């Protein structure tokens, strides 16, 4: 097996180093090497969105990014969404709207919704549904997720950090 490669990156604002094999995906390294298991894996083929993370602000499936591509990038995962004692408004609205049942897709939806609101602070219902179509939820029928995102957008009033 090939030797591991040293990668230096920034995860949730923190300088991070890891060793990885060339074939390893970003979600695999986050989960198995860095023990950041908030990023979930439902398919490893980019179809379910459970491993959604932000790579330099761009929404990606962690399973479709090679870990070595993380070199010199800034990665945001679910673990970086709340700040200190305070949940991100999206997290708070997901709780208030009961927008999760089993919760396995929730981190991916939150990251994807965060990316949406950074691009479009005041989305319509259709825009929310379009943007979140890369994320599968099998429990909720999406109703409460869409409602939570719309409510969060309203409560944030354009302040999408």
């Amino acid at each position, binding site marked *: *097996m090939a030797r591991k490669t040293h990668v230096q990156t920034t995860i949730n604002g923190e300088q991070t180093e890891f060793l990885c*094999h060339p*074939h390893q995906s970003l979600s695999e390294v986050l*989960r*198995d090497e860095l*023990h*950041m*298991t*908030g*990023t*979930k*894996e*439902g*398919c*490893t*083929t980019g*179809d*379910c969105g*459970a491993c959604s993370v932000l790579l330099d602000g761009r929404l990606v499936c962690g399973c479709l990014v090679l870990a070595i591509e993380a070199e010199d990038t800034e990665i945001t*995962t*679910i*673990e970086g*969404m*709340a700040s200190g004692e305070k*949940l991100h408004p999206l*997290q708070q609205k*997901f*709780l*208030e*709207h*009961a927008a*999760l*049942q*089993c*919760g*396995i*897709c*929730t*981190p991916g939806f*939150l990251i994807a919704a965060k990316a949406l609101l950074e691009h479009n602070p005041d989305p319509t*219902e259709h825009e*929310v*549904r*379009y943007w*979140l*179509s*890369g*994320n*599968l*939820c*099998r*429990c*909720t*029928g*999406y*109703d*409460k*997720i*869409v*409602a939570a995102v719309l409510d969060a957008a309203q409560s944030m009033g354009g302040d999408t950090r």
Partner: protein
Amino acid sequence: MSESNGSDRKFKWVGTRPIRHDGVDKVTGRANYGADFDLPGMLHACMLRSPHAHARILRIDTSKALALEGVKAVITSDDIPELALTDASGPTNFSDLSRNVLARDKVLYHGHAVAAVAATSTRIAQEALALIEVEYEPLPHVLDLRAAMAPDAPILHDHMRTKGVDPTPDKASNIAAKMELSRGDVDQARAYADIIIEREFETATVHQGDIEPHACVAQTNEDGQTTVWASSQGHFMIRAYSARLLQLDISQIKVIPMEIGGGFGGKTTVYLEPIAIVLSRKTGRPVKAVMTRDEVFRATGPAPATLINVKFGANRDGKVVAAKCKLVYEAGAFPGSPVTAGAMCILAPFDLDHFLIEGYDVVVNKPKTAAYRAPGAPPAAFAAETVIDEIAHELEIDPLDLRRNNAVSKGSQAAYGPKFSDIGLLETLDALRAHPHYSAPLGENQGRGFAVGFWFNAGMQSSAEVKLNEDGTAIVIEGCPDIGGSRASMAIMAAEELGIDVYKVRPVVADTETVGINDTTGGSRVTFATGMAVIEASQEVVKQCCQRAASVWDIDPTDVIWQDGCAVATGDGAKKLEKEDKLVPMPIAEIAAGAARTGGPITGKASLNARGAGPAFAVHLVDVEVDRDTGKVEIVRYTTIQDAGRAIHPAYVEGQMQGGAAQGIGWALNEEYVYDADGVLANPGFLDYRMPVALDLPMIDTVIVEVPNPRHPYGVRGVGEVPIVPPIPAIANAIHDAIGIRMRKLPMSPPNVLAELVRASGGA
């Protein structure tokens, strides 16, 4: 609203929407699911799976795989006990289960597990799989139900004789069992029918589609003591099944439940756990096994394809006078389709004196089917609810009037046997008529349909413990994996009984050694049955609190009642305290703080086998728009109405209604297993197995009807499963309303709808 079950009490917490207690863990990524758990020195397991749909295993040589650096063990069915073919308890045959976990002698579907490897990394384990040599003798396979029942069909199990046929046939068959359910005299009743409609329906194999692949970690010590960390719908089931399959004492296995990332019935059996246990025993190291999505589709329980024939006779007023139904359900590679449940459900909403229902359980070369939300009911409802709609149209009677005219109500004898107690079918139908959606205008190429769904709901065994902390807060311990917010419901019920704030209750889903036996999270039973255990355990705490207060006050315990979280003296006791100028309520916190002086810790326990799960009825109303050029069906508007008995946490009841509707919509419109000519599943991924995404659906309106279940202290009836039952026929009826075509085959996908449109217009 609640007179009928004797509880007209004013609730403080029941019916409110507190934030779930495990919520923050789940929105921050801290919650640990099956694949999120690791142990030091852990090995990784991968499965070798059959490349054939049906073949004899002639030889397996694992030596090259074992020789690979990093490989620590390779096992086949030789490494697990061979069980007697008759080793069964209830509906579970453990010989079949064992042969499903690791194929013995034959592989019966593409993806059937043949061997397992444990290695220092997943990568090495995968490399080792390629080094295992298996010599197969391919056999003809059969995937189609009609073909599987034909006299010359390839036989999956040489020992199988059709059960339920007298005399027992002497020839092997793929028909595992025949069942029958009847009442009255169908043939005679036909004489009263002014109209007879007979139709044939066909549905495809579908999958539960839980987003979390099956996963576990097992650690076996040198003395045989085993711990399993697993995501499942029932860790007591994992324990019992693993022990049975591996011939271990149940006390040797401890199962710690991980959070479960969706199940829908698909996590009610074992696949990986016994294998991980054996690999751990062989290697002396913890072993982790995680399925890929491909494996989940190929090797874990789909829900069956079905063929259903329905023949209804009705009189001129639209009253159904007789019905004949024949249901054929695929079981997958081993017997045990949900055909019995389908047969028991198909006529359940109808008040009917004469019927004959036949069911057939048929094995085919596909993965063994598993439960999927109201197992067996959706295809049955598709058939019955579509034919009923057709009768209404033929007779030019309002479909809702016709439905009401045939509906079961309190006292009706259910087609499946018992007399219904309080049920909410009429109430849901009335709520349908009253809903603005029912009379809203429709656009061009749009149509509206509705359908009724029924599900029994289950009770079964539950255990719970309520522990009062020193400060008057409480811990609720139960053992049913929380698949959709049940911790919050348990906390609500405990808070209601104890009279404390819902956030002062901490609900815990405990492992198999910490709480009494809990049956699996399934059958929509947890809020009903486990909730009942929590209520009883809480009442026991309250009783002890009253006794403690009585002892402090030195009055008779029967003179103490519980009010708003306080012990309150009444009667002679109150008079005595009044004289002493000590008549003040004693809050739970004070009782808890003084527990050491009054007899020690205060704990309540309850274990029960809950009876009287009230059946659930739901009615769904849908508007569709059909694109006549492509055959695409768009869901334009959707309303679900359901009798919840009593909604403990309405937001999560709505969530079940909406989620069930969405799954039913996927089943109706797009989802299906597609096989190639070799019996290989061609769409084992989320890209090609097309489940609904956010853009496919509108908001899903919900109306909760509450007809309390008299057999539950609060009136709860299960809510989780019934919402998947009405969507398929509701959509079929709406499509008919839009384009005048009756769809009788699933999925109602663009190519299938377009084919019907072309045929209707006289095209080829």
